[in-house]
């Protein structure tokens, strides 16, 4: 991890966030070691997503979004790298990464209002994934800004439950110049 790689900080709302993608051994206690490094230095973890990355389930990837108003994140990254269970860390910023987040929300709505909810969903490419009596559960996967916008507009309805997964991210793939048609446009405009 070079210091230059740490320069990219991402503004989400009015708070500066850093996104770290950390590859770790999938062993008990690893998450608490990683999280402990942040808490010991007074950093608040804004969101955290973790799951195995390979079939053998030997490794997991942790995507951590940290509130970081100041520079000492370099120090945390340096210390994180020293954890024996940590294989690699990359500090990602919006321009070099594909970021996605999943939102699930249950919305109470009369039959008449339900069509407004569905209209909002279709505008964002969100889906209705569950339907109950006077209630819908909708799902949106997208870049954090899009999810933020969807959540804001959804609040005009009576949201009874809402859950966001936190960010997951991967580095953007390289493309040879002029080869866009060959590689395809896999992720849409937000890539």
């Amino acid at each position: 991890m070079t210091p230059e790689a740490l320069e990219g900080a991402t503004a989400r709302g009015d708070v500066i966030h850093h996104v770290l993608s950390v590859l770790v051994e999938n062993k008990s206690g690893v998450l608490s070691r990683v999280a402990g490094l942040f808490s010991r230095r007074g950093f608040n973890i804004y969101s955290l997503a973790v799951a195995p990355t390979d079939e053998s389930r030997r490794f997991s990837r942790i995507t951590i979004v940290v509130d970081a108003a100041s520079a000492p994140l370099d120090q945390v990254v340096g210390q994180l790298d020293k954890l024996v269970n940590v294989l690699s860390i990359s500090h990602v910023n919006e321009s070099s990464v594909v970021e996605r987040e999943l939102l699930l929300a249950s919305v109470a709505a009369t039959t008449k209002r339900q069509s407004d909810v569905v209209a909002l969903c279709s505008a964002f490419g969100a889906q209705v994934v569950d339907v109950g009596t006077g209630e819908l559960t909708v799902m949106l996967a997208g870049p954090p800004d899009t999810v933020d916008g969807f959540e804001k507009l959804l609040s005009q309805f009576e949201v009874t439950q809402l859950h966001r997964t936190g960010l997951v991210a991967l580095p953007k793939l390289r493309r040879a110049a002029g080869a866009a048609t060959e590689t395809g446009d896999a992720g849409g405009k937000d890539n």
Partner: protein
Amino acid sequence: MELTGAQALVKSLEMVGTEVMFGLPGGAILPVYDPIVDSSIRHILVRHEQGAGHMAEGYALATGRPGVAIVTSGPGATNVVTPLANANMDSTPLVVISGQVPSGSIGTDAFQECDITGVTAGITKHNWLVTDAQELPRIVAAAFHVATTGRPGPVLIDVPKNVAQSLMTWYWPEPGDYDLPGYDPARTLDTADVAAAADLIAAANRPVLYVGGGVLKARAAGALRELAAATGAPVVTTLMARGAFPDSHPQHLGMPGMHGTYAAVTAIQHADVLVALGARFDDRVTGRIDGFAPRAKVIHVDIDPAEHGKVRTPEVSLVGDCRDAITQILGALSSRRVQGLEDWWSTLHDWQARYPLVYDAWEPGHPLRPEMVVEALRDHSPPGTIVASGVGQHQMWASQYWRFEEPRTWINSGGLGTMGFAIPAAIGAKVGCPDRTVWAIDGDGCFQMTAQELVTARIDRVPIKVAILNNSYLGMVRQWQEMFYDERYSEVHLSHEIPNFALWAEAMGCVGIRVDSPDDVVPAIEKANSIDDRPVVIDFRTDQSEKVFPMVPSGCTNDEIVVHPSLGVAHP
């Protein structure tokens, strides 16, 4: 071959070359203590687990080999937390084996249960909770590998009782087969960085070699002497590096920092190139950081990447082993013309002459001067004597007034500042180096924290010698209250009468001596040096008002160093 987990653990400790371990048994570790009866490994039975940890540290610091401590679950394990934190701060290779309640009981608040891997996660280099006896040989091999490679440090292996009791099929892992995909301490130095460092050093007019404990860990004392010869530069050795460069060497300015020599502290402040070798810019060295070495370009050599830029951003960063780095810098310097340093040395010699280490002479009717006791100990001890200390004034006087001539002769608690370190650490050092004289220079406050380990020393035939600089006070705290709290002494007076240290020593099977008069200092030391069948404790009654100088007051820059009052106000 089928073994129990306990047998496999002890056999693994033998396989990695363990010659001694320090410990105290209890319920959860009982299965592991059974095969110890048949093992070649010497076991030293301590009186408190903190003693076991510090003994293992003292052993490691004196020998360079990892120290091993073994404790039971719960309170046994929590009692070794301080040594783990201490070893973590001072990068000492330490392996602690702790018992744990049976796997099925973990999380039930079982008797003597404590989540010790959770407790120690932040103060160990790594730790393991063993879930399968079959894993034990690999984990033990990995633990010693992690503790001793890269930047050394403490590790802990937590072994549930049922794991120790269950059967496994014995094997010994191939070197490198440690199942540590995230751990690779190997570092390769960038030749361009080495060249940049050599350019800076060769062109420097006022260079200083700022030597830290990493030089000792890297066994780089020999290479350092060559670097000193090739550059002609002055050398300062931090509290953790005393002994890495001979105090008798004319290029040695002594210790930098809060209680460093005037020349060492001021040389750094005026340096144009500061070569930090295995040092970490600790606050006790730098003083107020924004005023530290303000004119210096910094070359930082350290094997831990996280140390680079942590406190001071270096101009040249060499991430790697100190000995490799120094050797490569020497190679690069051989083709460069190194600047003459006559002007620099005339300035340095002037500072040394004007502001030496001094103390007021003893006056009749007064208690002993602690500095004269340290000088007498130094002058009447055989070459190669190992000195261990606790933390406080006595530690600073020992560091200032002893003359360290070789590596691994100074055993102290630097980073954590653990009072009570001296006695157990001295015992560990003596166990590791039985042919050396080992003196613990201790304070009366520190002594009362861990003195019971002198029973261990007597019973296990570890004849250390202890000099208590007894001023009846928590002396360093008293000094701060005198200087910075208007002489309002709050809870620093211990007692002038109690305990009777000589009687206490005798009660523990040691020889106890009390010295009040200067005439008795040397005879008592010579008597102590002549006894080698049991520990000796000398209670030197010293002056409570004596303060450690020089001193950089807390929150000040090193330019504001205060020298001994008899030398007036210092001006470079």
